[in-house]
């Protein structure tokens, strides 16, 4: 394990980060694609996969948040105060949206009369009633939050690339998966 926790994120935090990064980007793209499809078995499949992915992201994000709250992340690298603040604000926004986007999707699904059954096995409770007007509103909210998340992710990635290629301060290495041999050394 890492002996200087202020130097790098923990291996668990790094695993959460990249796993969820891939899951969130894929779910977003599937979401964009499927909503324009006309009704077909493919559409139905994609909708269900999207919901399963969303609920998985929700659950993993809860574990990730627990990990984050119990493990100190590396100290900030030197940077202007406004950038430091913006970075932290973005991280908080990301965490809020990790939960907000799936929750809005889950509620939308319930309101539309299609309860979420994760992996086709685990029925989730409906915390809103079946209501077409409400479903429309929640659909808009889900989309709005998803696009907000996409926007913050783009800002987050852009900032990381700036640190890597313009500032060359090695910030990205703190989150970069290292080979176990290197980690051990």
């Amino acid at each position: 394990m890492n002996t200087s926790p202020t130097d790098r994120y923990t291996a668990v935090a790094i695993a959460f980060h990249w796993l969820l990064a891939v899951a969130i980007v894929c779910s977003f793209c599937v979401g964009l694609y499927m909503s324009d499809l006309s009704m077909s078995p493919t559409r139905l499949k994609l909708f269900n996969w999207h919901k399963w992915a969303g609920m998985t992201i929700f659950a993993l994000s809860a574990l990730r948040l627990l990990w984050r709250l119990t493990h100190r992340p590396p100290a900030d690298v030197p940077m202007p105060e406004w950038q430091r603040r913006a970075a932290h604000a973005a991280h908080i926004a990301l965490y809020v949206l990790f939960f907000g986007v799936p929750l809005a999707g889950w509620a939308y699904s319930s309101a539309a009369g299609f309860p979420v059954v994760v992996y086709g096995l685990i029925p989730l409770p409906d915390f809103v009633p079946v209501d077409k007007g409400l479903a429309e509103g929640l659909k808009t909210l889900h989309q709005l939050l998803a696009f907000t998340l996409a926007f913050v992710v783009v800002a987050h990635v852009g900032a990381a690339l700036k640190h890597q290629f313009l500032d060359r301060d090695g910030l990205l290495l703190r989150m970069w998966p290292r080979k176990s041999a290197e980690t051990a050394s």
Partner: protein
Amino acid sequence: MKTYLIVSALALAAGFAAPACAQQKLVPAQSEIAFTSKQMGVPVDGKFKKFDAQVAFDPKKPDTAKIAFSIDIGSATLGSAETEAELVKPDWFNTKLFPQATFQSSTVKATGPGKFDVAGKLVIKGASHDVVVPVALAQAGANTTASGAFVIKRLDFKIGDGDWKDTSMVANDVQVKFKLTLTGVGAL
């Protein structure tokens, strides 16, 4: 004279007997026909808003009962606007060609106090299949409520044809639930 008496006696008897045979009336506002289909494990509830029944039923003489049903397929609701738009298409209900589903009872058997098995033919989308529907009756004031549930196989009626035949996507079993309120049914 003698013949006249017999005729009037018969007419009288028929007159007395008539109320027992009179058709019972459906109270649509207090009746409901719902169905639940499973899409990738997700139960999706639908309803038929328009239906009618012709019922001649005496709880004391179930074997003489005649129960006929017609359901306006176009009145189905199911989940979202997208699924409802899909429902009327040829792969599903083909509502244009088959606007109605019907049920006609053949035999009615008492199975317990206030409980009956109604056997008959169910016709949906032009396909006819025998079904046995368990019905429980409950009476309150002038109203009699008949309720029950049964399962049909959607593919028996070619509901969800073509690309939708895959039962891992949409289950073959469809649960049908009904609650019908009738007036004019004799005491149990």
